[in-house]
């Protein structure tokens, strides 16, 4: 029952501008699967009120890492925490990605990398990674990704590195014909485009989606999204869904 605990911050550093990597030391023995998430709350103060969900970026021994972008006050506050501070964590939560049996395709858009990095690392040299960012400056972990993935295709909107254009273009040119299962995380517009590209095809495609959350454990019914089987809870039926289920 140590899915709820206090963890100590080992480091919390800005990688690029508003993107941070936080490393926690946890006594929890809970292991985590790629695609699962935790809910983090900085302290006992009640403003901001709810915890914030973040995907497991890495989980090893007693170390737990999250990669996050500052979006609003919750993540801003998180970025101000220092080494040694304690933070409340609840997790791992959610279903995570169905584990790939062999090679697979990953499509990551921007901070969506946070959700798929652990998957890529857990299956070295199996992932064909299509990674889209706005510009070179936003690109993260280039060397590590190169090392862990079988193939790395970077797309930048401005063309400052790799392919110029959005990542889904590159994927449809170079990834689609591989006919491998797809794992994707990124902005909704990217997910929609993937849905369009693989429409009618038989390729399995798993996407991680986001919704505002309160409980994170399926109790409040606050995080539902419409699917072709009615509303489903992102926190428990997801956050990873078969793209065919989603009403995009």
């Amino acid at each position, binding site marked *: *029952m140590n*899915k*709820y605990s206090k963890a100590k911050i080992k480091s919390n550093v800005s990688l690029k501008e508003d993107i941070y990597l936080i490393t926690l030391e946890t006594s929890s023995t809970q292991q985590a699967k790629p695609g699962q998430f935790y809910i983090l*709350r900085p302290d006992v103060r*009640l*403003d*901001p*009120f*709810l*915890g914030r969900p973040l995907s497991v970026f890495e989980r090893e021994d007693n170390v737990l890492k999250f990669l996050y972008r500052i979006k609003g006050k919750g993540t801003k506050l998180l970025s101000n925490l220092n080494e040694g501070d304690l933070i*409340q964590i*609840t997790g791992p939560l959610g279903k995570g990605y169905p584990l790939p049996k062999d090679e697979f395709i990953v499509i990551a858009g921007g901070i969506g990398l946070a959700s798929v990095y652990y998957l890529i690392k857990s299956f070295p040299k199996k992932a064909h990674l299509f990674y889209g960012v706005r510009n070179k400056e936003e690109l993260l972990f280039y060397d590590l990704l190169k090392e862990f993935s079988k193939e790395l295709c970077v797309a930048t909107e401005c063309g400052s590195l790799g392919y110029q254009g959005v990542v889904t273009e590159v994927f449809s040119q170079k990834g689609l014909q591989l006919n491998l299962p797809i794992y994707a995380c990124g902005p909704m517009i990217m997910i929609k485009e993937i849905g369009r590209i693989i429409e009618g095809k038989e390729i399995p495609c798993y996407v991680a989606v986001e*919704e*505002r*959350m*309160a*409980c*994170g*454990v*399926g*109790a*409040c*019914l*606050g*995080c*539902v*999204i*419409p699917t072709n089987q*009615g*509303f489903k809870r992102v926190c*428990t039926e997801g956050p990873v869904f078969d793209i065919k289920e989603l009403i995009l």
Partner: protein
Amino acid sequence: MKPNLKVKIRDLEFKNPVITASGTFGYGLEYSQFVDLNRLGGIVVKGLSLYPKEGNPPPRIYETPCGMINSIGLQNIGYEVFIKEKLPVLKKFDTNVIVNFFGENLSEYIEIALKLDSTDGIHALEMNVSCPNKNSEWRQMGIDPKLLAQAVKEVRKRISKPLIIKLSPQVTDISLMAKICEEEGADAVSLINTIPAMVIDIKTRRSLIGTLTGGLSGPAIRPVALRAVWEVAKAVNIPVIGMGGITSAEDALQFIIAGATLVAVGTANFINPITTIEVIEGIEKFLVEETIEDIKELIGKLNE
């Protein structure tokens, strides 16, 4: 000294006064990964209706200062699925199971109440007077004394299990509503439900809640809930279940001192899933420190 935490609603005993607030603890089982459910005074499950209900379109929740707004729209799995899938598991725990229920009109209220009354393993019924059907006259039940009286009477005379009425705070005089419930035979009242509220995204100029407005809960409303509980407890002789923003034993004790026989932990479960246990332990510790042997000595003991 081991203080006595036991309290009762009519003949139903609770091992301690701490239960969960409907809709914030799912069907109980969602929290068994954090909490030993056997330790709870009781579990109040998500509002149940005869048939499954889809609930409201998302977005359904939004954070507000020290609280949140929700508009779940009473989504639930319906009576049949509850009985088949949830209740058998819940029965294994040594705690009271209270089913919060509602209908689209009075006859549905009565129908589900009858079913729940005859179902083994359910210890008490909590009637949510917020009828979700926009076209039903019963829509006003929570705020109209006459409709409330009639609804409580009709349900009461047909069921034998303890009947709790869950009151809305959206009235001028909540103690009047509680008195009506008492007169019509309710065994307890629980309060407060959420307060109608709204939050707007100034960029899109849209409500951040799919249904425009929702209900405010959490510590933000605690002072309002506490005042309501105090007013009601003075007005009625049946037990009062106090809730609204309880996050700690100290909060819970405020409600008990104001007159609550039981307290329910709601939204706080979301920000700390073991709140219920912390509240139980904290109450016990407080009683020991204050050398109060029985929690009943504290109920309603506000020095005015």
